[in-house]
Structure formats: structure tokens, C-alpha cells
């Protein structure tokens, strides 16, 4: 799985901690998400997409 979270986070001028606070997770989870090492729940994927003002399909790319 590949993610575009880092790019969208930079576009929105958010730090990892700020994004984590917005979606109610720990910063480590955002780190794992950005590295594509964690498959989030549908709710978390949705929350991240909303926080970054985009859609789930733009954020997560499956091979």
C-alpha cells in the first residue's frame, strides 16, 4: 500500500502531531500510515481524508 498522506499534509501545512490530534490517534500511527506500514480502519481512513480535505482513494493507493 502506498499513501499520499505526507504530500497532502504538507499542502495543508499540518504537522504529524496536528493531524494526529485532528483524527484522535497517536503521532506514531500517522508515522506508520505515511510509511504505508499500517492498514487503517475505514473510519480512520475517512477521518484522515476529511482532515486533509481530500478523498480516501486519493490518499491510499493499493497495488
Amino acid at each position, binding site marked *: 500500500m502506498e499513501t499520499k498522506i505526507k504530500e497532502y499534509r504538507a499542502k495543508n501545512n499540518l504537522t504529524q502531531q496536528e493531524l*494526529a490530534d485532528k483524527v484522535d*490517534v497517536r503521532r506514531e*500511527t500517522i508515522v506508520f500510515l505515511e510509511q504505508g506500514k499500517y492498514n487503517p480502519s475505514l473510519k480512520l481512513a475517512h477521518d484522515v481524508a476529511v482532515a486533509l480535505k481530500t478523498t480516501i482513494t486519493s490518499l491510499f493507493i493499493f497495488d
Partner: protein
Amino acid sequence: MTLKKYQKIKLALVVIISIIFSQSIVFKNFIIPIIVLIISSLILMILRRRVKEIVADERDYIVGGKSALLTIQVYSWAAAIFMFVLYALRDTNPSFEPIAITLAFSTCLLMILYSLIFRFYNQVKFTEKKGKFITLVIVLTIFISIFTLRLFSGEDNWICKQGQWVKHGNPSFSAPTIPCK
């Protein structure tokens, strides 16, 4: 309260509980550690509510679930192997038998508890059978408690009376080899 402060307090409490537990075993006092354990749990519960940061999220719960499952599997296998070995060697040392029974009993209890909790989260939580399931668990808990009390009550054991080991009930093992004082 910050998460770091909460974790430091938690660590300090674990150290204090360990010290109290070890001292209680030495002094054979089992009421103080239970009281300390309850008070510590309450303190942690109150402090956790005051932490404004996220203490655990969905990834922690997934990792926790996987770790718990692996721990149960490792413990069950280890306990089963040790139980068979100790039970097979019970003739060489009679004290091996109660240890083997305790291991077997604790493993069975762990498996039953795991199965019940798994079933609850997997199916029952989302159905109308919730009430029936909880009733069944309560009845099962009562039966297991009675069985445990009967098993560990010392009804079938050897009692030291006037310098001699006397049969009490019908113990399944021979009289202890240690001197009776």
C-alpha cells in the same frame, strides 16, 4: 496531565506494587496487596481520565490483540508441556501433582475465558442474545468458582497431627516426605 507524566506514575506504581507483593509473600499477609492493587487501579483509572492526549488508538488495540493472542498460545503450550512432565514425574516428588493440576486448571480457565470473550466480541455483541449470553457466563463463573473452591479447599489432603501425617478426606497422592512438626 501529560501522557509522559501518566506513564511515569504508572511505572512508579508498578514498582511499589512489586515491592509490596514480595514483602507480603515474606510476611504471609495477603490482604495488604489486594487493597494496594485496588487502590492503584482506581488511581490509574482517575489519572487516565485526566490525560488530554491519546493514550491508545486503534493501532494499539490491534497490536494489543495480536500480542494477547500470541501470549495465550505460548502460555498454553508451555503450561501443557510442563503439566504433562510434572504429572509424569509425580511419583518422584508428590508436590509435582498439585503444581500440574494448578497449571492444567489455569490453562483451561484461560482458554474458556478467551473463548467466551472472543465469542462475545465476534457475534453476541451485535445480536439480541446478549442477555442470555451474560447469564450463561455468570452461571458458568459460579460453577467454576465452586469447583475451584472444592479443588483448593484442602478437603482431600494430609494434615500434620501430633508429629504424624494423617489422611483428611481421600488425597490422591501419598503422604509428604518432609517431617511433620
